[in-house]
C-alpha cells in the first residue's frame, strides 16, 4: 500500500460535520417476548461512527440495507439525537445548532429518496419552490417568480413546469424538482439519500451530470448516500463504506476502490457488475441482525479471510496511509 504521502499536518480546518464515536441505540421489543411483556433490547443502529465532512468535499456513504446509512443521515440532519458520542456541525452539537433558529435548516438541505413522496401532490411546482424562499426570506415577494424560473432553469426544467403538479412530471423530473427545492434556500451542504436510484440509466446520467455541475459551480458540500459504487466513484471524492452500523473503511474514493483494504469493501467492489468480467464469487450469507451482533469483528461471520483473532477482537477504525482509515485487524495489503 503505497500512496503519495500528504503534508504531515495539513492546517486544521474545521469540518462542516464531525461525528465522534456516534452511537444510536434504539430500544425495540425483545424478539420472542411474551404477549403484554415490555421487555426491550437495544438495537445498535450506529456503533462508534467516526466521520468528518470538510467544506466543499463530496462524500459517498455506501453500504447495504441495514448498514445504518439512513440512521446516520438522520443524525447528520439533527432529526435524531445520537444516544452516544458527539455529532458536531461547525464545531457545535447538531441539536444545539438546530435549536438556534433557521440557519442550520437553511444551510443544510436534503434531497429525499422518495422524491415524489416528498412533494405535496396538491401544490404546483411553483408553490413547492416558493415555500422555502418565503420561509427563509431569500427573495422579496416581487422577485419570487423570477427566482423560481431561475431555479427551474438551473436543474434543467422548462419554466412552465412551475404551473404543473408533481403528478404531471416523470420520475426524473420530480427528482429535479426535489433538487431545485433543496437549492432554494441557498444551502452550502446538500445531503441526498439515494437521489438517483431506481431510475433508468439515461435519466440517472442526466441527474448525475446535473449534480456534479451544481457541486462544482456552487461549491456545495455533498453527502451522498448510495448503494452503487459506480455512482460513488463518479460523483464523490471521498467514500465511507458502512457495515452493520459502523464505518469499516473510508478515504479518497479512487484509492479505496482501486485497492480496498477492508475485505468487505473488496467484496462490494467485486460484486459490482463489470463488463465481461466473470461473475464474482459472492459473499456467503447475509448481513447479521443488529440485535445479535457477531462477537469480535462484526464482519467476521462472512469474511473470506477471517482468522481466529477476528472473532475475539472488535477492530476500530484506524489510520491507514494518507487520508484513509480501515476497521480491520488483517487489512488487505496490495503486493
Amino acid at each position: 500500500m503505497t500512496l503519495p504521502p500528504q503534508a504531515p499536518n495539513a492546517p486544521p480546518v474545521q469540518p462542516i460535520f464531525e461525528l465522534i464515536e456516534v452511537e444510536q441505540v434504539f430500544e425495540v421489543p425483545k424478539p420472542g417476548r411474551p404477549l403484554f411483556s415490555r421487555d426491550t433490547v437495544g438495537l445498535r443502529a450506529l456503533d462508534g461512527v467516526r466521520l468528518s465532512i470538510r467544506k466543499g468535499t463530496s462524500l459517498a456513504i455506501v453500504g447495504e440495507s441495514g448498514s445504518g446509512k439512513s440512521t446516520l443521515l438522520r443524525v447528520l440532519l439533527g432529526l435524531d439525537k445520537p444516544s452516544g458520542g458527539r455529532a458536531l456541525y461547525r464545531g457545535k452539537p447538531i441539536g444545539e445548532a438546530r435549536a438556534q433558529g433557521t440557519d442550520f435548516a437553511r444551510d443544510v438541505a436534503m434531497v429525499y429518496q422518495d422524491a415524489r413522496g416528498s412533494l405535496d401532490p396538491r401544490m404546483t411546482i411553483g408553490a413547492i419552490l416558493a415555500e422555502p424562499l418565503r420561509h427563509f426570506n431569500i427573495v422579496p415577494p416581487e422577485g419570487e417568480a423570477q427566482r423560481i424560473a431561475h431555479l427551474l432553469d438551473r436543474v434543467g426544467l422548462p419554466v412552465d413546469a412551475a404551473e404543473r403538479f408533481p403528478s404531471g412530471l416523470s420520475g426524473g423530473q420530480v427528482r429535479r424538482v426535489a433538487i431545485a427545492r433543496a437549492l432554494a434556500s441557498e444551502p452550502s451542504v446538500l445531503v441526498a439519500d439515494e437521489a438517483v436510484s431506481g431510475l433508468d440509466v439515461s435519466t440517472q446520467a442526466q441527474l448525475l451530470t446535473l449534480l456534479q455541475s451544481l457541486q462544482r459551480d456552487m461549491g456545495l458540500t455533498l453527502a451522498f448516500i448510495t448503494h452503487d459504487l459506480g455512482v460513488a466513484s463518479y460523483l464523490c471524492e471521498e467514500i465511507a463504506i458502512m457495515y452493520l452500523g459502523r464505518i469499516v473503511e473510508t478515504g479518497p474514493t479512487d484509492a479505496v476502490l482501486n485497492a480496498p483494504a477492508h475485505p468487505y469493501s473488496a467484496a462490494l467492489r467485486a460484486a459490482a457488475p463489470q463488463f465481461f468480467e466473470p461473475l464474482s464469487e459472492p459473499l456467503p450469507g447475509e448481513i447479521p441482525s443488529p440485535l445479535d451482533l457477531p462477537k469480535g469483528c462484526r464482519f467476521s461471520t462472512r469474511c473470506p479471510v477471517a482468522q481466529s483473532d477476528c472473532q475475539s477482537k472488535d477492530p476500530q477504525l484506524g489510520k491507514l496511509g494518507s487520508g484513509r482509515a480501515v476497521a480491520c485487524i488483517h487489512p488487505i495489503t496490495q503486493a
Partner: protein
Amino acid sequence: MTERMTDVALPPVLTLRDLTVHRGAAKILDRVNLSLGQGETLALVGESGAGKSTIAVAIMRLLGNAKIDGTIELAGEGDLLALTERQMVKLRGQRLSMIFQDAGAALNPSYTVGRQLSTTLRRIQGLSKDAARERAVELFTSVGINDPEGRMSAFPHQLSGGMQQRVMVAIALAGSPDLLLADEPTSALDVTIQAQIVRLILTLTRERGASCIFVLHDLALASQSCDRIAVLYAGQVVESGPAHDVLEHHRHPYTQQLKSCVLEIGTKTLTAPEGTVPSHAQMPPGCRFSTRCPRALPRCAGEAPPLVPVRSTAAGPLDHHIACWNPE
C-alpha cells in the same frame, strides 16, 4: 473470459415472430422478433417502458385480454397464442415458469413458503402430501436456504429479500421447466445478494439444461450472465445478438447511448443523453428512437427499419441483428 456459444447449432426452444401487443391505440410491443436456443441465456435490456417485462409476461400468456398479434412458438407446443387457457395452465410451471421482480409481493403472505412450494409440486408433479414435502425440503436445500426444514413453516414476511427470492427460484424450478423467465430478479436486492441470486439461477438452469430469459436493466450484469442480448427501445428490438457482439461491436445508436450511460467503477466522464422516450401518443410511425437519435435521417421517423442480420466481423456468422437505417 467465458466462452460464448453461438446459436447456429442449437435448436430453438422459443421463437417470437412479429410479436405485437396493443394497449388501446398504442402498440406497447411492436413486431418483436427473437429466438432462443436450448440451454441459452438471453438478456432483454432497455429502459422502463421498453417492453422487456411485457415480452416475458406475454410468453407466459398473462397479459389478460390485451390484443396480441404475431406468434410465440415453443418447441413441441406450437404457437402458444393459439392454445386454450386450459392447455396453457398445464404448460406453466412445467415447460415455462417465471421469477418475478418483487418476490415479497409475488409470494402469498398468508401461507407458509413450505406450503406454497408443496402445493406447486403436488399440482405439477402429482406428488402425495408427504412426497411433496420431502421434495420441497430438497428444493429449498438446492437453492441455498439454510435450515430448510425449519424454513418450511416460515411465512414470507419472516424471510429477508434474498431468502424470499430463493423461495421464488425454488417454486419456479419445481416442475423442471425448460424455459425460465426471470423478470429483474435482483433489482430489489443488495449487490452482494444480487451476485448470489444471479449465480444461483445460472447454475440451476445450466444443471437442468434449461434456457433462460433474463429481464435486466444493467448492461454490465447482462454481459456477465448471458450468452445473448436483445436491446429494446419503446417496444421495439433495436439490436440483438451474441452478448460480446452487441456490446463491443454495436451498430445501433441506441445501444451506443445505453452503454455510454453505464457507470463502471472509475468512470469519470459521462455524457447524458438529451430528452426522454416519447409518449405512445407521440410515437413516430417509423423508428421510435428517431426523435432522440444523433444519426437520424429524414426517412427514419416515417419508415420503420426492419431487423436485419449483419456480420460483426468480416468472417463472422450472421447472428447479429439490427434495426436501423443508418447504422454505425
